[in-house]
């Protein structure tokens, strides 16, 4: 399936996926894709350059989705390694902060119950 890759000024990308059921009975595949791709180029994507590629050429997995950039020389989406590493670290920090927050709440709940003479162990 064809997808349209829209390139933002900072080289990050948006990817447009056509909905298969939107194809009209009297449309060729080319007419259908052109219609849905054109309609999707609105809002923040309006007027930006784009490339149409096959979906199988997209990077596998989305762990580094926000590090996807359009590589003009390679003619495909590549992953910016610096940005990908930053994303990985931020994700680890967020997860650890969340764990500590939950752990703090748990300890506070245990302390409150113990203070009220309720044994939770």
């Amino acid at each position, binding site marked *: 399936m064809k997808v349209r890759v829209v390139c933002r000024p900072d080289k990050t990308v948006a990817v447009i*996926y056509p*909905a298969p059921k*939107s194809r009209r009975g009297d449309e060729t595949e080319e007419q259908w894709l052109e219609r849905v791709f054109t309609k*999707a180029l609105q809002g923040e*994507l309006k007027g930006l350059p784009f490339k149409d590629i096959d979906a199988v050429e997209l990077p596998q997995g989305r762990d580094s989705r926000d590090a996807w950039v359009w590589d003009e020389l390679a003619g495909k989406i590549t992953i910016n390694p610096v940005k990908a590493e930053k994303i990985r670290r*931020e994700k680890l920090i967020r997860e650890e902060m969340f764990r500590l927050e939950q752990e703090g709440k748990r300890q506070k709940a245990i302390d409150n119950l113990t203070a009220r003479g309720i044994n939770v162990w």
Partner: protein
Amino acid sequence: MFLVGSRLVQKFTNLLDTFSSYVGKAGQFLRVKSTEDGIEPVSQASIYPTTLKDADADTKVDTEESTDEDIVRFDTGGTERMALNGNGLQILVASPGTPQANTIVKDNIVKGWIKFSGEGTISINDSFNVSSIADTGTGSYTVNWNTDFANVNYACVVADTWYGLCIASSYAVGSIHIGTYGSNFAGLDLSDISVIAIGDQ
């Protein structure tokens, strides 16, 4: 073969009280003349009316408002309420101030929906009135409607099968933004995201 007076009749057209030739009569029916003294050929159209109507003709079912339009139109009280064609049944009745129970009007029909996965490779499981989705980042998607809404005052709900946070925002007549987030409010790709929208078109 039988005798009419002294005349030997072998064909229907040899009768004296009917038409004398079959030419131009293909597919027509026979009818007794209004003068009740013979029979005549008549076209199917003059037997099968294209409109079924009440006494004052303001409530009707019309199959030929214009030539061969292939639309069945339903009118009540002089106003067209529904139209059925090859694309489906179009409801033209707006909801009254107080809705009638168990009644379909154009305001209460789902106008667009989609179920898609935002994990791994983005995939659209099924949809109605969606032309495409734009993947704009982690947990960030734009659903583009096929037929636009009349205004941005439509209602849209988003859900997923996990315990993530789903938000619909940036309502536009032709699209809506869907954001999905994890428990720490950072963008997160989720699977099985459902979006349903109802409003004026």
